[in-house]
């Protein structure tokens, strides 16, 4: 069933990390291909002509684009191994709601934290922490958002941890101080090989952000 599986990705992308984790959780072998976003490959442009973005998951030559859609696809095709999406329809809807929330808020607010200064940055930090606190509320006393095992929301959210150090340095604040439960959850996730191997080193991500800031004159 595996067939040929290729992931076009870019190492610091939290969206690419989602698919990496999903595939690793299910023990599915695939070929990882690093894209240079300043010099996109013909394959990327051919497989995602609408957006020209990574990640792209190519399965037997057919492309699946958008990380959230990829994770759902991976879960549907390899449904017998380490299911990520709840089987109960209501729990599934709850998980989808939170993944939608994460997609609407976390990346954008995080970007504002490293891209802006002054009042705009302060507002972004405040809202970012508020969002993490709402997520902490949803986590409650569970080990993972998915319960006893890693689930859809865990996979969607944990990649952003690799950017936390960069957000903290740029925004001069401590995420752990504000949201200790969130960091405790992150640490549990990082004990899983599928997560630890899929996330880049936080310091590397911070260096990458510093380079971007130089390039954009931020």
């Amino acid at each position: 069933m595996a067939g040929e599986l290729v992931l076009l990705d870019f190492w610091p992308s939290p969206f690419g990390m989602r698919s990496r984790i999903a595939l690793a959780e299910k023990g599915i072998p695939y070929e990882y291909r690093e894209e240079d976003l300043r010099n996109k490959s013909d394959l990327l442009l051919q497989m995602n002509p609408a957006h020209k973005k990574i990640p792209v998951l190519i399965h037997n030559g057919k492309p699946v684009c958008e990380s959230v859609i990829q994770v759902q696809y991976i879960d549907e095709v390899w449904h017998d191994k380490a299911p990520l999406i709840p089987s109960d329809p209501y729990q599934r809807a709850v998980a989808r709601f939170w993944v939608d929330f994460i997609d609407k808020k976390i990346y954008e607010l995080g970007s504002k934290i490293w891209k802006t200064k002054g009042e705009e940055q302060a507002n972004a930090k405040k809202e970012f922490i508020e969002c993490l606190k709402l997520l902490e509320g949803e986590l409650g006393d569970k080990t993972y958002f998915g319960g006893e095992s890693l689930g859809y929301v865990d996979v969607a959210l944990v990649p952003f941890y690799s950017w936390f150090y960069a957000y903290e340095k740029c925004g001069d604040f401590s995420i752990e101080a504000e949201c200790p439960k969130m960091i405790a959850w992150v640490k549990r996730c990082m004990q899983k090989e599928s997560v630890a191997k899929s996330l880049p080193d936080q310091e590397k991500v911070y260096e990458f952000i510093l380079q971007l800031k130089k390039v954009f004159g931020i």
Partner: protein
Amino acid sequence: MGEVKLVGTWVSPYTYRIKWALKLKGIAFNYIEEDLCNKSALLLQYNPIHKKVPVFFHGGKPICESMVIIEYIEEIWPHNPLLPTDPFERAMLRFWIKYAEDKGPSMWMVGEGQHKADQNSLEMLKIIEEKALGDKKFFGGDNISMLDIVLGLGHWLGGEKLLEAHKLHRLHVWLKNFKQVPVIKEDLPDLDAMLAYLRRQREMSPATH
């Protein structure tokens, strides 16, 4: 299986999506009209994060966000399917839904087609026509799919005239066919009445929502 309830507003295309999905599957439901200028305790209790309609209830349990609701409806009542069964075909449909949703209403605001934003929107409509619709009657083939429901937004934004003006012939025919489907036809807002209502709202309370 439990009572089905929908809290929405007659001016919102997002509310109509849910109504259409339920009606296409022949599911009985109670509808509660929400006054967006005076949000009810019910709404604020069940959608505290976004405070928006629609909110869907099944057996008392609330679900928010129109696409989350429709996926739930599809799972609970799989007859008259709105999604293909093949995982790759589903992924493609979901991709186009996200494509349209990310752009939202502004995809239809192509006006005279002179500004850059208009050009981008026009490009998107062309891509959707070419890649997602092709020569099919509906995006789902012979039957309505989730993507048809999502793109029904075109009705609210002067879809037919705009599609005709920009020679998007296939999308134009699609919208006409879509609005002729009985379940859709009997549940489309009167645009003039809607505009008048929105105008009155603005006059009454400048700071709405």
